[in-house]
């Protein structure tokens, strides 16, 4: 059974204090690993898809990386508007399109 574990559950940073969020996964053949951002009361907003170990993708202050067992979401010099819950999800090979999500990391960036 596919499993996704995110850590830490919650993270508080000062504005400008860089850090990383972790997503560990167990999947029978990874087809894709996805990062989403979710603001309170809203649906998840797509950020990145990673397909193979060694792949990296960047968007503004965010960079996602992937190994065979985990993914990291690096946040460089965060701003208060980066405060949100960050969700990681995996999709396995074999035909199903469903995403299996972790519980998320709630990030708070203080000014």
């Amino acid at each position, binding site marked *: 059974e596919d499993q996704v574990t995110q850590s830490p559950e919650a993270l508080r940073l000062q504005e400008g204090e860089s850090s990383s969020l972790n997503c560990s996964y167990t999947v029978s053949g990874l*087809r894709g690993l996805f990062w989403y951002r979710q603001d309170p009361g*809203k649906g998840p907003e*797509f950020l990145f*898809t990673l*397909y193979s170990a060694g792949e990296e993708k960047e968007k503004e202050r965010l960079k996602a990386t992937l190994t065979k067992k985990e993914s990291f979401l690096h946040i460089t010099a965060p701003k208060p508007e980066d405060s949100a819950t960050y969700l990681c*999800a995996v999709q396995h090979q074999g035909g199903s*399109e469903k*995403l299996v999500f972790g519980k*998320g990391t709630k990030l708070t960036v203080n000014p």
Partner: protein
Amino acid sequence: GAGVSQTPSNKVTEKGKYVELRCDPISGHTALYWYRQSLGQGPEFLIYFQGTGAADDSGLPNDRFFAVRPEGSVSTLKIQRTERGDSAVYLCASSRLAGVGYEQYFGPGTRLTVT
């Protein structure tokens, strides 16, 4: 362009009642997904449509839950004999096609409260 829309945004119902939740996908998207999210949890897959047919309904918790997409666009999630444990945010997502490289885009969700 317009994103995924869901109606109603909030629904309060009594235990035992029937409810319908509606999802309008992004125009032109052929794949549609339903997820359920409880407080403090990530979304949990329910069902996925490719066109009009349910391609994977393995996440539906029991036979009180049913979903349709009769014309390959709008979808309705139907819950019979609601229970308090059904209270959650029901999220709908769509993608242009199904398969590698097609990301799922989510709507704002319907918050269902069963009293």
